[in-house]
């Protein structure tokens, strides 16, 4: 009952015209991000950070969250129409979505995807409403040793963030931690590792790093890749109605996908992608006609699309209640929070309940808006796909540079953003995903403060630090993850060595 009252309070916050406008803009941009291949959620949020300075904190957070969950709605459009996933989480949608389009059922696939996304997202947000506050309440008992353990476990687990090489991810995380220590030390006030450059006293600004590595890096990647213009089918409103049979087959996978997505979303890593594959596998197993999968089975669209949307809502639970980003996108979302002086975690819920509940209420509204936007306007989004990348990318490049300059009116930021962009381009090409680097930059300071303060509190007794009940539980989880990673890596590398592939 208390939660319902708080949610109603949140609703009054999210229905303020400025916040409602921010939510609408966020979900529209999110949908576009999902629809347009070559632009991803992380880059978009990074690019829009400077724009958010003129907005109120709550409105900015609502907009960023809208971009984040809205992007998963749009991701299915290109998967179904072009066999090109707009998002990693929509890869599996290609398997049956595109064959459906080839059979002339693109409209039905798109509408089932949108409705499934809505149902599952709502399941996810209900879960967020119920589970985030108690988790944050439990986290209020945390002291520096617990925060150190939490940050350390977060970093350990997040080395699996991208699904690529764990070693490379660890390298990126440690580089992120190193970058995070540059500048004024918050504990002693000493200027560290600035090499005499006064601009580095304020440290590496998270938004500049993100805009460079993700924004400019992405622009370089897309502009230097050979592309062919897509041929698109035309979608009319009457094509969007699924048949009774299609409905009957879609509804159970939507709910199952919603539950799977929510559970997977509570785990660190690329939850939206993993949950979509898990849902697809489950639907195939439960199907009476598994042979239809890959040929245009509607369950293969409904389940995975529901799962990836639900997972996105679930990843907001650790972010909002513990301040832990469990994915690259939530890491950049966290940076958006921090730029506005808001630190997610237990304090957010107790000290700024209006903002917290306003954000959650906006997600309910945002999902309704996404359903309204996605169904009738699908034709418009299909037309958007015709926007040539050779026009779009230069505009995004100028937007990024202008946005970066506007943060501090600093030319050195522009130099840094270009350097970061080139670095980001080469990192991606060599399999070093930049997401974990951002995690390191964000969690590094928490790790340091927890470690230093924890050691001082415990008189340098590390054993006392790690045997506190919550710390030991968290560190045990971390140790198990390391053990699992090490074992699976050894098995894979042995297999590769036997095969002699290099």
């Amino acid at each position, binding site marked *: 009952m208390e939660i319902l009252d708080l949610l109603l309070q949140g609703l009054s916050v999210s229905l303020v015209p400025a916040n409602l406008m921010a939510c609408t803009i966020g979900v529209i941009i999110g949908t576009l991000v999902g629809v347009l291949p070559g632009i991803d959620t992380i880059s978009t949020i990074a690019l829009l950070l400077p724009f958010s300075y003129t907005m109120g904190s709550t409105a900015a957070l609502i907009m960023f969250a809208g971009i984040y969950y809205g992007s998963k709605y749009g991701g299915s459009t290109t998967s179904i129409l072009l066999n090109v996933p707009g998002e990693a989480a929509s890869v599996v949608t290609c398997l049956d979505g595109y064959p459906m389009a080839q059979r002339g059922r693109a409209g039905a696939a798109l509408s089932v995807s949108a409705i499934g996304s809505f149902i599952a997202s709502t399941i996810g947000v209900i879960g967020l409403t119920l589970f985030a506050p108690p988790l944050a309440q439990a986290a209020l008992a945390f002291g520096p040793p617990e925060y150190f353990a939490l940050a350390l476990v977060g970093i350990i687990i997040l080395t699996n963030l991208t699904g690529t090489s764990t070693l490379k991810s660890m390298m990126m995380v440690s580089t992120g931690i190193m970058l995070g220590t540059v500048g004024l030390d918050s504990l002693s006030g000493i200027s560290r590792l600035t090499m005499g450059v006064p601009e580095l006293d304020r440290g590496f600004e998270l938004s500049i790093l993100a805009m460079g590595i993700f924004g400019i890096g992405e622009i370089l990647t897309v502009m230097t890749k050979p592309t062919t213009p897509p041929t698109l089918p035309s979608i009319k409103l009457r094509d969007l109605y699924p048949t009774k049979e299609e409905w009957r087959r879609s509804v159970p996978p939507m709910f199952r996908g919603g539950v799977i997505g929510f559970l997977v979303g509570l785990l660190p890593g690329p939850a939206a992608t993993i949950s979509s594959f898990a849902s697809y596998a489950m639907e195939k197993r439960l199907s009476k006609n598994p042979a239809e999968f890959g040929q245009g089975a509607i369950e293969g669209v409904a389940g995975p699309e529901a799962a990836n949307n639900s997972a996105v809502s679930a990843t907001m639970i650790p972010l909002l209640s513990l301040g832990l980003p469990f994915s690259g996108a939530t890491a950049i979302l966290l940076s958006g929070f921090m730029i506005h002086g808001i630190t997610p975690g237990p304090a957010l819920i107790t000290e700024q309940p209006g903002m917290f509940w306003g954000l959650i209420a906006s997600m309910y509204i945002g999902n309704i808006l996404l359903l309204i936007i996605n169904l009738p306007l699908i034709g418009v989004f299909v037309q958007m796909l015709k926007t040539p990348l050779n026009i779009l990318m230069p505009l995004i490049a*100028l937007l990024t540079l202008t946005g970066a300059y506007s943060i501090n009116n600093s030319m050195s930021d522009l130099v840094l953003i270009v350097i970061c962009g080139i670095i980001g381009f080469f990192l991606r090409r060599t399999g070093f995903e930049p997401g974990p680097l951002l995690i390191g930059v964000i969690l590094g300071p928490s790790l340091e403060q927890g470690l230093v303060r924890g050691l001082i509190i415990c008189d340098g007794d590390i054993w006392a630090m790690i045997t506190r009940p919550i710390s030991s539980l968290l560190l045990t989880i971390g140790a198990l993850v390391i053990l699992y990673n090490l074992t699976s890596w050894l098995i894979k590398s042995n297999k590769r060595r036997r095969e002699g592939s290099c």
Partner: protein
Amino acid sequence: MAERIVTLCFLLGSSIYLFGAQQLTFGTIDSPKSGFLPNLAGLAGIVLAIVLLIVNRQCLSKPVKQDMVDWTKFIFVIIGLIVYITVLNIIGYLAAAFIFLLYLFKVADTGGWLVPVAMAGSCSVIFYLVFGYYLAVTLP
């Protein structure tokens, strides 16, 4: 090969970082100072880079699939970015943005001249109005 070069860059960067961290006070285990975590992070970076080099050498890691890249375009885009930053304070935002956009449109194979010039002109003015007036950013 590219992977190895990037890993070597990480090794070099971590070594330089650790050298810098050595200049800071490490403190003791019961009273850590500002150099405590930087020293540990630098050391971890070096160890990880060495392990990665060994893993690459022994072919224990999965080879990375690389997309085709038009390196000529890559160099031209970088030149465009550098020139934009260089001339921004000299010729001002509006002119720099117009030249930068027009240049990138042509690098990205936008056909003809009328459309790129019109697009570059109108977009640079729109950006100038949005940032300079609406967002009240002091543009050069």
